[in-house]
């Protein structure tokens, strides 16, 4: 058997994906159900000469990775519910200062301490709007360990390409479940390196002046270019400003660099959608159950399909619209009170066709749960 075939937890797959992506610096704080990401990295990173630090809380963990990103490193932290709440202010700092970083949130039941060892997908909208102020954000998800690995690498790629924080929105089932993972070959998944300025010493470097393609080449702290980084609205030098035109231009730049590139960062999987009159939409571990239902019903000749979203934010509205335009029934399968359902309704346009199939008791939604509600939605009785 190839040594590239492993049998691991989703949290380990995430850690291995991060190492593959070129993770240099990790800071974190223990919290269930994400802790195995830190534990795996505490073992592997020092052995690879990389930096791992356990901080005093999640706030400082998020801050530390931003500091480390500025010296030229690929950085990451991982957490769950309450820790994700604590990270929100610094997450907004990374948005404002345009610092590449990756934040894994292995979701558990909330609010508050909630249901720490049980599954939930209740942080979908916190990922989108958790930090204060107008902004856009990237959040990726996965339903199996091969995709956990892949999406983790893509998270680093998007973070570097767009100079933005990227959230990995996993859940407890994915984090703790064990299954096969084939570690990709060295060059199998492309890896985006940090884009650095080619400007020499003595030439004015503007850290916040986008190139024609919208990208902002960086310069490491410690290198020849010295500049200011701030969470205040700032000009192209990084100096604070409240000039209305500069403020608006920066806000637009930060939102547009994400929203105008939705298609470039949309990852998804479609199953039997070509002729589907019933379309299920799901993500994370609930997509496994949704796929099981789709396969069972397809075997019985029903025209049902599944759209699994790996990219949750920016919401791929166009993709959802295309995949559902011929569907009589659209059902979003998620383990919350309908957080992504709202976005699906907006995308589909006709909210009467869109329904929620959920479970919010800390237990994973299974195929029977989905089939039960589907029967009702299809008027087949209970």
């Amino acid at each position, binding site marked *: 058997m190839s040594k590239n075939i492993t049998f691991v937890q989703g949290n380990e797959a995430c850690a291995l994906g991060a190492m593959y992506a070129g993770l240099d610096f990790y800071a974190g704080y223990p919290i269930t159900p994400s802790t195995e990401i830190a534990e795996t990295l505490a073992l592997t990173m*020092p052995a690879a000469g990389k*930096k791992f630090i356990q901080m005093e809380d999640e706030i400082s963990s998020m*801050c530390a990775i931003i*500091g480390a990103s*500025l*010296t030229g490193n690929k950085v990451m932290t991982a957490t769950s519910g309450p820790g994700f709440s604590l990270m929100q202010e610094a997450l907004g*700092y990374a948005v404002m200062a345009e610092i590449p970083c990756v934040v894994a949130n292995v979701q558990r039941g909330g609010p508050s301490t909630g249901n720490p060892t049980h599954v939930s997908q209740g942080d979908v909208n916190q990922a989108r709007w958790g930090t204060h102020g107008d902004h856009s954000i990237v959040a990726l998800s996965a339903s199996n360990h091969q995709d956990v690995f892949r999406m983790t690498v893509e998270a680093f790629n998007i973070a570097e390409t767009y100079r933005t924080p990227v959230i990995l929105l996993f859940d407890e089932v994915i984090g703790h479940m064990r299954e096969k993972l084939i570690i990709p070959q060295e060059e199998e998944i492309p890896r985006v390196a940090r884009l650095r300025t080619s400007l020499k010493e003595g030439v004015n470097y503007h850290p916040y002046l986008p190139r024609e393609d919208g990208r902002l080449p960086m310069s490491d*702290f*410690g290198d020849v270019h010295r500049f200011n980084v*701030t969470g205040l609205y700032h000009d192209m030098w990084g100096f604070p400003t409240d000039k209305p035109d500069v403020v608006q231009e920066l806000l637009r730049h930060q939102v547009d660099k994400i929203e105008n590139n939705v298609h470039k960062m949309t990852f998804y999987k479609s199953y039997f959608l070509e002729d589907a009159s019933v379309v299920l939409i799901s993500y994370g571990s609930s997509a496994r159950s949704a796929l099981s239902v789709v396969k069972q019903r397809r075997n019985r000749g029903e025209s049902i399909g599944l759209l699994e979203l790996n990219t949750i934010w920016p919401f791929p509205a166009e993709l959802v619209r295309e995949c559902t335009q011929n569907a009589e029934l659209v059902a979003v399968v998620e383990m919350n009170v309908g957080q992504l359902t709202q976005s699906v309704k907006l995308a589909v346009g006709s909210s009467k066709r869109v329904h929620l199939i959920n479970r919010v008791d800390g237990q994973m939604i299974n195929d029977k749960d989905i089939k039960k509600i589907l029967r009702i939605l299809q008027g087949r009785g209970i």
Partner: protein
Amino acid sequence: MDVKYYLRERFFPHMWCAGCGHGIVLNSLVRAVDLLGLKKRDIVMVSGIGCSSRISGYVDFHSLHTLHGRALAFATGVKLSKPSLNVIVPMGDGDALAIGGNHFIHAARRNINITALVMNNRTYGMTGGQFSPLSGVGTKATTAPYSNIDREFDTVELATGAGATFVARTTVYHVKQLQSLIKKAISHDGFSVLEVLSQCPTYFGRKNRKGSAVDMLNSFKDGTVPVGSKKKQENPELIERGIFVEKQLPEYCDAYAELVERATAK
């Protein structure tokens, strides 16, 4: 020396009030850096939020102006990821010891080679004169109109108790000592804390009838004595200046480098 060589003139005029003590810290800081012969590109100033935190923008080093209270957390990421950098963290009393108190004690505990400058004016100046954990019982503030009942921290004792390996205090009146202590704090291999008493005539001074900026500076002269002075034994109200702790213990980045050696030797 040419002070302007170290300043970003584009950033001036500064936003501090007339009579504020923070400019004296800025002046002493660049003079200390000049005397140490440090290169501008080897220094990172990391600050949080508040009047004192604006110091990082005025200097021509790498500068990281962050979140309220979190400067030391950002600085820890900068330092551990690139230990060759000199990391200096100017903070206010509220920034360092109220909202940032947890990061302060843990940076001290790790003994990571960062220089923390606590510019203590006993108030939140930027938000308009609220009491801080260093204001003390009996002081007046906009949020303590009936006089403050919150006991104050002693920055030196707190830093010492948390494990900082260099702990010192001075005031903006004692500029020569300030310059010398900043030099020593930066040179120290480990977590160093320098508390600098600085005046805020606009808020703390006005609320507590401390007179003009000159009056407040004079009170630093009259109200402080060198460490170990006999006068302190006779008058416990006096505040001691000088070095309280200076010791060598394993520094965090060095310890990490050793950890990597152990991990890679397996």
